[in-house]
């Protein structure tokens, strides 16, 4: 790979837009090209500087105006038109800003997923939104697993693995309780840049692992997998690729703990 070729790939490599094969070729060429190595380092530093900027929050007045507009429409109680085929879910609490939060919740899905995937998914997204839209996103605020893990003892009937993933770019914010499928579950909240991730985690009925599958709907990304005897369900508004790296980071941390 000559320098113009590898220079043209620097940004796409950093942004995770190259295929696995292209990435491998780029990584192979990089040590032989100090110019591109410098450009990559520069782009990395810039990326972290930009992602470190404080997130903008819509002014209360703007939010109130939009909210008033939406309520005015609802108050007219016009019948839904035929194209309105989606079920209406009165989730008014979602009006609060959710876009800047990524929350990971850990919850019980054992055995019910194949038949009730849609409803379970809605419950998990709702759980994520509770984390993402509330100022009180977590019941126990700590990046220290030795604080979070004991907090769950006595509140739920199992002991979820709690790991801080800061070194993988997902610092642990804390944990909270939620209800999933009629059962109290533990939800861990992680942060990814300006986003939150909610991870619901429950004991699995089988010890065998299931690799992560990532799906998208309505702008939410959901990762579901089984690892180390636990069912993992993570919901966020990060990218699918980031969800995959979240899953593998968590799996590595769980494995290292055994």
């Amino acid at each position, binding site marked *: 790979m000559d320098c113009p070729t590898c220079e043209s790939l620097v*940004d*796409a490599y950093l*942004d995770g*837009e190259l295929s696995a094969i292209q990435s491998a070729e780029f990584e192979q060429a990089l040590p032989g090209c100090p110019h591109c190595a*410098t450009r990559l*380092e*520069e*782009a990395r*530093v*810039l*990326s972290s*500087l*930009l*992602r*470190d*900027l*404080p*997130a*903008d*929050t*819509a*002014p209360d*007045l*703007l*939010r109130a105006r*939009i909210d008033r*507009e*939406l309520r005015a*429409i*609802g*108050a*007219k*109680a*016009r*019948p*839904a*038109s035929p194209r*309105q085929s*989606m079920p*209406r*879910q*009165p*989730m*008014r609490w*979602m*009006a609060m*800003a*959710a*876009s*800047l939060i990524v929350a990971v919740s850990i919850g019980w899905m054992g055995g019910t997923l194949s038949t009730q995937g849609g409803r379970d998914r809605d419950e998990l997204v709702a759980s994520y*939104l509770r984390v993402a*839209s509330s100022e009180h996103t977590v019941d126990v605020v700590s990046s220290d697993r030795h604080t979070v893990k004991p907090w769950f003892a006595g509140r739920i009937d199992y002991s979820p693995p709690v790991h801080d993933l800061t070194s993988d770019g997902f610092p642990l914010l804390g944990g909270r309780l939620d209800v999933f499928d009629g059962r109290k579950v533990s939800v861990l909240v992680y942060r990814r*840049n*300006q986003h939150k991730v909610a991870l619901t985690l429950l004991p699995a009925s089988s010890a065998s692992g299931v690799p992560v599958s990532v799906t*998208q709907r*309505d*702008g939410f990304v959901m990762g579901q997998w089984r690892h180390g005897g636990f069912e993992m369900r993570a919901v966020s*508004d990060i*990218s699918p690729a*980031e969800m995959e790296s979240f899953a593998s980071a968590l799996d590595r941390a769980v494995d290292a703990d055994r």
Partner: protein
Amino acid sequence: MSDALRPDSGTAERFRTVMLPHLDAAYGFARWLTRDPVQAQDVAQEAMLRALRYFHAFRGGPPKPWLLRIVRNTWHDLRTKRGADESLDVVEDRPADGPDPEENALGADRRRHVAAALAKLPTDLREVLVLREIEDFSYKEIAAALDLPIGTVMSRLARGRQQLAAELRSRLGRRDHGLPDL
């Protein structure tokens, strides 16, 4: 997008669920486009109302690129309507967004410089960088939001990063920006 419909209550409810969570992003993007908090509020409000009127045309997929595309078009329209874009040449350092007790003064100062350097970039480079680094959009999503070919997104990102690095080098000392020497 020519057929705006009067939204009904079901549409409003679904809009609340799907689009309203991205209000902060809409405002933030408008702020980076206008570089002015008051204009940003106007743009974001008009864009949200437009998005509501055209929400029946939303075909699923990620809602944020769809919404931010409307923000950008709205900004463009309002700017054209107002005539000359007087704000374009008047780039002021963005004021700090409120107190930031967690960070020391050095970090706050560095962020101010980073924000000011980004605000100084030409719009076509700035909007691509904002969507990539602040909204964390994929190239495909950026292309959709800005109505550009992916190749153009890539070349603008590369140019934007290089210009931003140059601007930061001239603003900050080596220790503060952490950028490698060229």
